[in-house]
C-alpha cells in the first residue's frame, strides 16, 4: 500500500506556503506508508543554461563539497552545493547532461534523484513526519509539489525504491499500484536507449512517460498512450515544469481524490490529506474517473 499526494498552486500568492501544506498532506498519508517518504518540489529556478541536480548518498557525511569542486573543475563551470540530510542540491552553470554524465562516471555511488531547472527531489526512509522535518519541507516555497509515502510489500525499504521517480528534466512520477508488464516495457525502453537505475515497476512508468514526451507528446498525450501500453493497477500523479497530472487505470482499485478551488488543485489517495487545505470547504471534490486523463498547467 502507498499514499500519494500532490498540490498545484494556481494562485502565485500561495507559493510561500507550499511546503507547509504539502507537509500536512504527506503526514496525513502516514497510515498508508510509514516506511519511507519522498517529495518533489518545483521552486527556485536556476538561471538559463544552468541546472540543478538533487543527489543522494547513503553516508550523511559524504564529501559533497569536494565533489562539487571536482565537478566545477571538470566542467569549467560554477558549481554551488547545498547539503540537506543525505541529499545535496548541486547547482551547475552548465546543462544537466554533462554534469550527470560526469557524476555517473566519477562517483557511481552517488545517485541522482532528480534534475532540471526547478525540481528538487528528496526521498528517505522513515516516517513521513521525520522525513519532512529532515529536509525542511515546511519552509519550502514553490508552485507545485508531489509526494509519496511507501509501505513496502514486495521490494526492499530503501531510498532507491522510494518515490518520486524521475526520468527527464523537471519531470517526476509517483505511483500507487503495480504494473504487470514492466519487464517487457523495460526491455522495450532499453532498446530505445533508456537506462534504468532500479528494478522498480514505477521507474518503468516514469521512463515510459518520459519517452513519450521525448517523442513530442504533451503530458496529456503521454498519459493517454499509457492507458493502452501500461498493464496493471495504478494511480499516477505526475509533475512537469509547468504541469500536473493524475491518471487511474480502467479498473480503478487504487484510490484517489481530487479537490480544486480557484487557488489550487490537490490530489491525495484519501480525503484525510486534503482536509486541512485552505478553502477546502468550498472546493469541488471528486474521485477521478477510471481511465480519464486529468491535467493542469500553469498559466
Amino acid at each position, binding site marked *: 500500500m502507498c499514499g500519494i499526494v500532490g498540490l498545484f498552486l494556481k494562485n502565485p500568492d500561495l507559493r510561500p506556503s507550499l511546503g507547509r501544506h504539502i507537509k500536512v498532506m504527506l503526514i496525513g498519508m502516514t497510515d498508508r506508508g510509514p516506511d519511507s517518504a519522498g517529495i518533489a518540489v518545483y521552486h527556485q529556478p536556476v538561471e538559463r543554461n544552468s541546472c540543478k541536480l538533487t543527489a543522494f548518498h547513503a553516508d550523511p557525511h559524504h564529501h559533497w563539497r569536494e565533489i562539487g569542486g571536482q565537478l566545477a573543475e571538470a566542467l569549467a563551470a560554477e558549481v554551488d552545493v547545498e547539503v540537506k540530510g543525505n541529499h545535496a542540491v548541486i547547482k551547475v552553470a552548465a546543462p544537466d547532461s554533462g554534469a550527470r554524465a560526469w557524476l555517473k562516471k566519477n562517483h557511481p555511488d552517488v545517485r541522482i534523484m532528480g534534475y532540471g531547472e526547478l525540481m528538487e527531489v528528496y526521498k528517505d526512509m522513515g516516517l513521513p513526519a521525520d522525513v519532512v522535518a529532515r529536509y525542511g519541507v515546511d519552509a519550502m516555497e514553490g508552485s507545485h509539489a508531489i509526494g509519496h509515502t511507501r509501505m513496502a510489500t514486495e521490494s526492499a525499504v530503501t531510498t532507491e525504491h522510494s518515490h518520486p521517480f524521475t526520468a527527464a528534466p523537471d519531470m517526476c512520477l509517483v505511483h500507487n499500484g503495480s504494473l504487470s508488464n514492466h519487464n517487457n516495457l523495460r526491455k522495450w525502453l532499453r532498446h530505445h536507449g533508456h537506462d534504468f537505475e532500479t528494478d522498480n515497476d514505477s521507474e518503468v512508468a516514469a521512463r515510459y512517460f518520459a519517452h513519450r514526451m521525448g517523442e513530442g507528446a504533451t503530458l496529456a498525450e503521454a498519459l493517454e498512450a499509457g492507458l493502452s501500453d501500461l498493464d496493471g493497477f495504478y494511480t499516477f500523479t505526475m509533475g512537469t515544469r509547468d504541469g500536473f497530472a493524475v491518471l487511474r487505470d480502467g479498473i480503478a*482499485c487504487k*484510490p484517489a481524490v481530487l479537490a480544486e478551488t480557484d487557488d489550487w488543485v490537490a490530489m491525495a489517495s*484519501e*480525503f*484525510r490529506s486534503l482536509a486541512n487545505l485552505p478553502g477546502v470547504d468550498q472546493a469541488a*471534490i471528486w474521485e477521478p474517473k477510471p481511465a480519464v486523463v486529468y491535467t493542469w498547467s500553469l498559466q
Partner: protein
Amino acid sequence: MITVDLADTSVRALNDRLHKLQPETNERAWHVINPKGAHALACGLTIPIEVIIEGHAGYYCAGMNKEATVIVNGHAGQGVAENIMSGEVRVKGNASQAAGASGHGGLLVIEGDASARCGISMKGVDIVVGGSVGHMSAFMAQAGSLVVCGDAGASLGDSLYEARLYVQGSVESLGADCVEKKMTPHHIAKLERLLARAGIKTDARRFRRYGSARRLYNFHVDHADAY
C-alpha cells in the same frame, strides 16, 4: 443532541461511547464535527440512535450498521455502510467505491453519485443513488434492490443472483448474466415505495429493471463463454 468534536476526540473514543449505549438510553441524537475524512466513523452501531456526521467521512463509515440512522453531511469514502444489517445510512454528497458492499438489510441512500462497485455482493440491503454509479456495480449481488436515478457504468450486475436493479438513465453495459426485465405494475409500486423511503422525487415509471438471467447458477458448458 450530543456533540463530539473529532478535533479533540479520537475515532476510537467516539465509537466506544456509541457502542456502550444501552437500548434504553436517552442519548439518541449525536452530532460529530470535524470528521476530516477519518475512517470507520460510527461503525458497528446496534441500537436505534441517530448520528449526524458534519463533513466528509473516510472509509467504511457506518459499517455493519444495525438499527441506527447515520447521516453524512458531505462525501463518504470507500465502503460506506458495508455490511449494513438494518437501519438507514444517508450520504448527502457522493460516495466512493463499494458503497453498501455485502449489505444484508436496511437502507442506504446516496444523494449524489456513487463510484465503482456500488452494492457489490449486496445480500438484502436497499440502495438508492440519486446520481450515477460507476462500473461493476451490483457485482454478484444476491438480494435487495439497487436504484440508480442517473446512469450506470460498465458491467452492471455482473454475475448477479436475485437482486433487483432499477436504472433511470443509461446503462453503459450489462455484466455477464444480467438482462433487462419487464417493469410490471408490481415493480413500479415497489420502486415508488423505495423512492419515497429515500426521499427522492422522481417518476418510478421512467426506470428500467434489470435482473439475473439465471444462466450462471450452475456451470453449464454451453454457457462457458459467459463466465
